[in-house]
């Protein structure tokens, strides 16, 4: 089959690889009908995530048709149309039973490696480095799905791929980001990064009762979509100081909830942003933390900082003293996708949210390498690419 393979930092290519096989009794093989490139795939593309190996198949947002099942899977049938959550979870451990699917104890074959890095291992992930299990991803014609009896969600035939594809990652991620913000009626929510997750988080924040949503980005097309989603848009290059602007916009209080949809490759034009850039370039630091710092500075006293953006290592110049002084609450972590898939499918069906507005490009899987470059460089106003094998 054909699959998009990682060949080193900045290099991906569609190659011919062997077809996936059933390896465990709870596996399924899914023939991919639609898959997407995620912003977090760019962290791999840029070489920010360690333990990638040449030839690894990428992709963790995908859906398709079940073509083969391991003998323990009775909840699915061959021919079922399914969306697959990006985190791989057993459904039996303490964490899965607590609805903390992304923290599954039993799905990472390289848990020992993850323990060395983080003290503990979280769940395995599709196509996201060997630290997260080294599972082959879904930017391919087919994929092996472990624990297929608990992960994949059957979707109704009358809903097109594009409406439900993002249940695999970015819609639940945006929803959990908003939920983690503990939004109260009347709250103002500020969102750093108006990429696909940020844009969907605007909608989710409104669904959860936010009175105002403010989006912070620098790309005109993203800011335009943010406005269309009923957010107020701040171009951080056009204002002197983002945190001051937010303070002014909120009557001196600061936003009640601050959501960092940027993660470890933050850009900025302040002194601390250049400092991060220099340190990570020299391998003296692992993460660029500019957006998160701003979120902490901006957040109102007693507010909540929600972090769906990915961080990988040790943060430098992290204003914990300020966070403490303001009594902030932090909520973060990989999305517990399985927790949100069904309710969000219902919301899509009822028309409460339509995630297709973030799609700007549709391509063939064969052109995926061009897609990565285009997405990375924001060419042609690229925000979200859907690939068809």
């Amino acid at each position, binding site marked *: 089959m054909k699959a998009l393979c990682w060949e080193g930092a900045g290099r991906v290519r569609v190659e011919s690889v062997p077809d996936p096989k059933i*390896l465990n009794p*709870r596996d399924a093989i899914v023939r991919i009908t639609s898959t997407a490139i995620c912003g977090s795939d760019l962290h791999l593309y840029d070489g920010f995530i360690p333990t990638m190996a040449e*030839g690894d198949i990428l992709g963790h947002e995908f859906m398709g048709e079940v073509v083969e099942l391991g003998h323990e899977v009775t909840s699915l049938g061959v021919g079922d149309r399914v969306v697959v959550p990006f985190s791989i979870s057993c459904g039996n451990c303490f964490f899965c039973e607590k609805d903390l699917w992304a923290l599954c104890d039993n799905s990472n074959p390289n848990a*020992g490696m993850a323990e060395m890095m983080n003290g503990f291992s979280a769940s395995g992930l599709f196509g996201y480095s060997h630290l997260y*299990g080294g599972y*082959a991803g879904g930017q391919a014609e087919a994929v092996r799905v*472990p624990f297929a009896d608990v992960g994949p969600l059957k979707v109704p035939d009358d809903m097109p791929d594009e409406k439900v594809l993002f249940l695999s990652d970015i819609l639940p991620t945006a929803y959990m980001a908003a939920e983690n913000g503990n939004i109260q009626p009347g709250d103002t929510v500020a969102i750093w990064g108006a990429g696909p997750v940020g844009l969907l988080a605007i909608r989710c924040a409104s669904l959860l009762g936010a009175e105002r949503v403010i989006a912070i980005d620098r790309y005109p097309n993203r800011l335009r979509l943010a406005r269309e989603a009923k957010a107020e848009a701040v171009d951080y290059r056009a204002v002197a100081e983002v945190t001051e602007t937010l303070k002014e916009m909120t009557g001196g209080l600061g936003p009640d909830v601050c959501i960092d949809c940027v993660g470890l490759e933050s850009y900025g034009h302040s002194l601390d942003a250049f400092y991060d850039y220099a340190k990570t370039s020299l391998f003296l630091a692992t993460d660029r933390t500019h957006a998160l710092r701003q979120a902490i500075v901006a957040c109102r006293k007693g507010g909540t900082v929600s972090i769906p953006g990915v961080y990988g290592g*040790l943060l430098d110049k992290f204003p914990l003293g300020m966070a403490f002084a303001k009594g902030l609450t932090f909520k973060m972590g990989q999305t517990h996708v399985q927790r949100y898939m069904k309710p969000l499918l219902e919301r899509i069906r009822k028309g409460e949210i339509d995630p297709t507005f973030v799609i700007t490009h549709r391509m063939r899987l064969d052109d995926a390498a061009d897609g990565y470059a285009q997405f990375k460089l924001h060419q042609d106003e690229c925000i979200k690419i859907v690939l068809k094998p």
Partner: protein
Amino acid sequence: MTTTLTPGSPAARYREIEETRGEASDVNVGEGERLACGIGGAALALYGIRRDDWGGAALALLGGALLYRGVTGHSEMYEALNVSTAGKSRAGWSRDVHRGLKVQKTVTVNRSPEECYRFWRDFENLPRFMRHLESVQVLDGNRSRWTARAPLGTVSWDAAIINDVPDELIAWRSLEGADVDNAGSVRFRPAPGNRGTTVTVELNYEPPAGRLGVTIAKLFGEEPEQQVREDLRRFKQVMEAGEVATVQGQPSYHGRD
């Protein structure tokens, strides 16, 4: 400063572990690395100071940081990452000529003590999660023959159960004539808060003099603690998920012409 701790209390136990590990010092950078940091740092700092511009100031600062690391042998980053290049820390196991080798590891399994005990008590199940074992053959109610993989073929020995308390404890030891005199036990205790079972494994190896290195390495490779931890992780996976997570045999692209 010395404080008196109640013998057997968690604090006393912790102190004991810390002392055994001999990690009271802050040094976590290896000798070679310290030397390199010291010399490189000093050179960088001097060069930076002599450049007399902003770039030079940055280099001087960086050099100073490296020099500090070289002199003190302490790296904040290593500490935060729990890494040390100043000699390996080996919590959880100890090796000394008189006592042989001892490993103890604990895991919590989201199944009842009865289920865990029953699965373990059938020794023929052990190779499903103990990777170094090729097979365990039960000879009669009490005795079994263990066969382990080794780099050059296999190693075999007979073992007998020396203690068996249903749902609580199984202990075994090798019989006369084993290459490696070994004993092991596994204890199953209900985990607090209905979280299943706390499973603690303890293994002891007392090889005949002179064969320590060779035979132990044959059985366990370089990191016995890691082996036992991985075995217990697989036990948990088998008990909870019914299978061991794997990616062996999945596609990737490796052929490049």
